[in-house]
């Protein structure tokens, strides 16, 4: 088990190279090592038949309970459509100032919206989402600097409007929180 750094746990098959690139960006942004592992959960337990989606609250709690030991932060990466009871969907979510966060690639792909898949856009969006949710676990809240990765995104196009990096203010806050 890794005593240090951030663990990214993939649930479902992600290309090694793809995960590696995300891990590189995350590692640069938070200045700590990032380890990639595979996770196994029976997702049917989190499926809501009425909504045909997966319960993000329960999954976040489960990842936290089963996978968070041994690392500073833990991130669960999924393929399935996530929701929480009050919202129609979420890209991901985190325990603010906590240990664990999750995100799904499901709503990030252009194909889902009937557009051509741009080569790097999926990777970029997922990277931003991972950095964003991890930012929350480090206690960062949403930022009003539009290019900052901590800017709030409720639409997939909002994600494209921002960079994958923390702005100077958030970075200072991060170093205070760390």
């Amino acid at each position, binding site marked *: 088990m890794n005593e240090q750094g951030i663990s990214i746990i993939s649930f479902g098959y992600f290309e090694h190279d793809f995960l590696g690139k995300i891990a590189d960006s995350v590692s640069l942004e938070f200045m700590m090592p990032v380890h990639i592992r595979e996770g196994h959960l029976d997702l049917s337990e989190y499926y809501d038949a009425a909504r045909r989606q997966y319960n993000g609250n329960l999954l976040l709690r489960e990842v936290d309970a089963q996978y968070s030991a041994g690392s500073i932060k833990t991130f669960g990466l999924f393929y399935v459509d996530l929701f929480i*009871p*009050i*919202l129609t969907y*979420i890209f991901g979510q985190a325990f603010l100032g906590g240990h664990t966060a999750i995100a799904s690639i499901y709503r990030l792909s252009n*194909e889902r919206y*009937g557009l051509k898949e741009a080569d790097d856009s999926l990777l970029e969006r997922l990277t931003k989402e991972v950095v964003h949710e991890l930012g929350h676990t480090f206690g960062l*809240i949403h930022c009003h600097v*539009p290019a900052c990765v901590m800017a709030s995104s409720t*639409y997939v196009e909002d994600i494209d*409007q921002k960079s994958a990096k923390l702005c100077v203010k958030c970075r200072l806050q991060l170093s205070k929180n760390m």
Partner: protein
Amino acid sequence: MAKKISILIVDDERSVRDSLYNWFIEDGYRVECAENAKEALHMVESDSFDIILADIKMPGMDGLEMLRRIKSHRKESIVIVMTAFATVDTAVQALKDGAYDYVTKPFDPDDLSHLIRNASKQISLSEENEALKERVVSLENIEDLIGKSAAMQSVLKEVESVAQSNSSVIITGESGTGKELIARAIHSNSPRRFFPLVSVHCGALTESLLESELFGHEKGAFTGAMYNRKGRFEMADGGTIFLDEIATISSKMQVELLRVLESKSFIRVGGNKEITSDFRVICATNRDLKNMVTNGTFREDLYYRLNVVNIQIPPLRDRVEDIPLLVDYFIRKYCTSMNKLPVTIEPSALKRLQEFDFPGNIRELENMVERAIVVGNGKKITLKDLPLQKSMIVSTLESLDDVEKSHILQTLINHEWNISQTARALKVDRVTLYNKIRKYNLKPLE
């Protein structure tokens, strides 16, 4: 926003309370929860909440009764009523009783954030009115917008005065002068600041893509369009749309754009429903639009509609007195983001920077400083750290990574960022090169 807006969530379902609590805390609000109406009323008496989000159906006192009591206690409270089963009757009753809005669970995340931003705007506007209508505009929140020169100060004055209005603005300036920053400054000092600033880089999109980007499309509009998708005009509702490189749009798009600006309404691609959106337009260009009107490549009527206010950003070589300030700012910015102690710059190097003509303007200066911090000795930026002369002699580098980064960057520059040529020159494949560019976060100067 000086003071944190406070939200009280009233719902008997714990998962709803928790989810909303997390959502709003991440957005920077102060949030409290109550399980039932009675508890909520107690809390409202001792603490004033700006926004109360309450479920209608709760055991004991229901949400509508609670709404009436809260409104009689504090008329200006904004109460939003939530329900899982919308009926017209309860909606009408809630609005009659003074609810600010009535929403059905579950919410679309975008709708929820719009709803709360609308409410926040109302709160801040009524507070601003109360506060002697005094409006102190602060440009402090705008990163990177720096300059003491007369030229820059007059730009900032224009930004301040135009921010309060709703006029269309055209920002002109050479590339790299920071036109997007000016747009952001106008937006975040305007009453529209609680709503999005949506940017569109017109030059980067083909005509058909631009149309779908701007207006959105309906499910089934074309093969593979499985979902409805909002366009940028729709996303900018309540806020500002920033159209960069406006001079690049086709004559067909010019006609469409004019129509949208006149009617503030449009139809999604493949749709038939008219959608209205309340947005402000800010455009930017590095071309001479007036000249394009004269030679017939840009519509005159569109030009006059966009060009209500024109802000011209001076090129960096016309405000060399700002260079020391900017250098100092970029040094702090990059040293912070690279977790390094702030470096200084040798006076002779600074002097050479002030003599350089910077065709790429501030962006070029910023990239130069960032690069100098990376390749420099970590204490002082010297002349040899700055790519002002043709051949760069790289020495006194500290780690293997530094050498690699600097070598890759120089090779990329030599091949004008042509990835295939650079990869060949470095004898690696393109994927490896891309990975290195990503790893070292290398960017072209222009």
